């Protein structure tokens, strides 16, 4: 639907969307019609080289729980300004129902040079009165100067610091942006939810809770040669929590080597002079973790996390996540220390 010369008019896109709904309504079987669902605008900024099919599948999987107007912008590194757009619908039929539920999707192809034009295109395409979430899948885009104009439209920007390269620099940058008032989310933090749940479950036991102030050392082992942001986040979250009981343990990181680089392999809480850890959680075979507390060993599920699972969790928190914000600030300090 891109006009000649690589230009797009937001009004045209909105008009095409209106036509799309009319045609969907006519296609609906019998009187069931289609149900238009929308709880937010989800803007996805991705590289042209990014797997389009995977993004499409992730969005399709997200829609039943987080029905959104999805605006997928695929960038290619080019000096010439060019833009093109098309609209279509993502529909599904809930089990046992006769009515299709549909969400609209807009795909925009853009060159880097046209990034400064994009905010004026995306702004009118956002759904009124609903949150706008920007999922930036590429650190290169995040670093483009004009990206801030696009980010300014969104209430929240979702990033993945795991792909940023240097963890300390990434955390400093994200923490700086958060400090400047931007509402950010980091999928590297979201990957820790299950680890944090396992730690929290250990100390739900009153006997173990009493051991918390005894923790003097935290060890976080990871696969990558360099400490990833997930390791810093977990350590920061633990130290933040322990500080509440007046405990200020030492933190060590250790590399086991292996893939994927962001994956953690062990977290261990120790008391000084004790041969055994107070508690540890280690990555085990398959999608499992081995949880050791005192002499007891348990297995717990630690499922592999897809983009869908991570975004599903992030989109459930359209506002501020104060726990993440505190962990981010602490992780940035930890990485720079």
């Amino acid at each position: 639907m891109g006009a000649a010369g690589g230009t797009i008019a937001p009004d045209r896109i909105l008009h095409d969307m209106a036509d799309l709904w009319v045609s969907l309504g006519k296609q609906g079987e019998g009187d069931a019609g289609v149900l238009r669902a929308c709880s937010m605008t989800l803007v996805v900024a991705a590289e042209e080289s990014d797997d389009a099919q995977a993004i499409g599948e992730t969005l399709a999987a997200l829609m039943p729980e987080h029905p959104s107007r999805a605006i997928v912008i695929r960038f290619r590194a080019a000096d010439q300004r060019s833009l093109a757009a098309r609209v279509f619908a993502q529909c599904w039929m809930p089990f046992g129902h006769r009515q299709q539920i549909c969400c609209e999707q807009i795909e925009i192809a853009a060159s880097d040079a046209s990034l400064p034009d994009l905010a004026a295109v995306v702004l009118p395409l956002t759904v009124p009165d609903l949150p706008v979430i920007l999922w930036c899948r590429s650190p290169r885009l995040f670093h483009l100067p004009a990206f801030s104009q696009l980010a300014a439209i969104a209430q929240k920007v979702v990033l993945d610091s795991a792909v940023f390269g240097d963890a300390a620099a990434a955390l400093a940058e994200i923490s700086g942006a958060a400090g400047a008032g931007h509402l950010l989310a980091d999928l590297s933090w979201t990957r820790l939810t299950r680890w944090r749940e396992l730690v929290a479950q250990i100390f739900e036991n009153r006997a173990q809770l009493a051991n918390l102030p005894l923790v003097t050392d935290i060890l976080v082992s990871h696969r990558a040669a360099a400490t990833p942001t997930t390791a810093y986040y977990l350590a920061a979250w633990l130290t933040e929590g322990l500080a509440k009981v007046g405990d200020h343990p030492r933190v060590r990181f250790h590399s086991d080597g292996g893939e994927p680089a962001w994956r953690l392999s062990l977290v261990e809480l120790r008391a000084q002079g004790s041969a055994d850890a107070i508690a540890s959680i280690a990555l085990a075979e398959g999608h499992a973790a081995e949880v050791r507390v005192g002499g007891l060993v348990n297995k717990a599920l630690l499922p592999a996390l897809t983009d869908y699972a991570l975004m599903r969790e992030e989109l459930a928190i359209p506002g501020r996540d104060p726990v993440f914000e505190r962990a981010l600030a602490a992780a940035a300090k930890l990485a720079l220390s």
Partner: protein
Amino acid sequence: MVIFGANGDLTKRKLLPALYRLAYERRLDAGFAVLGISRTPMTDDQFREKMLASVKEFLEDSPFDADVWTAFAQGIFYMAGNFDDAALFPALDARLKEIDAARHTGGNVLFYLSAQPSQYIPIAQGIAAANVGKGSGWRRIVIEKPFGHDLASAQKLSAELHSAFEEAEVYRIDHYLGKETVQNILALRFGNGIFEPLWNRRYVNHVQITAAESIGVEGRGAYYQEAGALRDMIQNHLSQVMATIAMEPSATFRPDSVRDERSKLLRSIRVMKPDEVLRNTVSGQYGPAHIGGEDFPGFREEPGVKPDAQTDTYAAVTFFVDNWRWAGVPFYVRSGKHLPKRVTEIAIQFNAAPLAIFNSDETTTAPNLLILRIQPEEGISLKFLSKRPGSGMTLRPVSMDFNYGSSFGERSPSAYETLLLDAIIGDATLYTRQDMVEASWAVVDAIQHVWDETKFEFPNYAAGAWGPKAADDMLARRGHVWRQP
């Protein structure tokens, strides 16, 4: 129906397609006739051909039926003439008698002024001088905005019209009032029991009325330069919409009963003192921008516009209504060219719950809003908070939507179809009366006088943005923010 300015855009794009559609729906009498008048010499057949092309091009959401057109076209006539020429009007009278004899129109004539506003007075004077405003049947005159360019000129225009027509015969058309959603405001407010008890200062925090256009002046720079957003939109369309939103219930749905209430409301709008104007209004003008890969000129670069023009292509005003129902409730009204999207809507923001008992962040304190969408997708939305499924008490804003297009399986008539039919049957409910025009001019003149004496730093917003920052600041001073429609 006599159309002055029959060769103009309005006739081609709106009037003839609307009349054809009324004929298609069999809403017009079999003897209905159209007599077009403009300066261009043309025969009846040439005019019919031209109108056929227009109807085919501009007919919206409706099939074209050649048989209906053939019957309808038999009643289309044309005469060439200059509106300043006194000889035109006796000739018009003679032609009307001919048509009446041929088509049995009963002597009823609806004059439609689709000409340049500067020609309204010569036309009115010509009609009065030739006594064409009176006849064996009813005679009415429909005029398009602008109804003057200030209070004094509006009063002068009215006096000239009254030399040929009674006020009850003057139909000042405001096509916004013919839109289904604007009419539906009355149905929503006065046909339901649940809204009216909330419709007052106790529950309504503020009201925002937005009429945004995504395009610039599109070749109308020379005209627009003299008008501006305040006069072109707020004085007429938006003040009428505001009156419909805020008026008291009418005792009956008779034309003058409804118009009396609208008029009362317009007269209750506080007229700003000169020192209040710049605090409660914002004038804006768009500058150049690059949007979606395309370069757009600033207003001052548009053809026919002076390079130092002080015209407001954007106007935002905080109105207050001095009556018991609305005292202290701000009505924020804005209109502009080259804003991000074409949209007209009314947002009524209700007061927050008196006590926030849930963990609150910006999403869980979102205000209740009732949105009345006038265009492009006519409908109504009610926004409120709901618990998100799952553990914990997390609130998320949700909305209940009513969409005209999908809720009723039938086509909505265009505003011109509604209004033309009303004028033909003599229902002036949706037309503007002189006292309403004067009341809104009194409010707008007070602002315009101060603006005329102020040198604004234009341009102050880029094409494609939601207006100047000063408009945001105007709301921020009262702790409010503009919605992004």
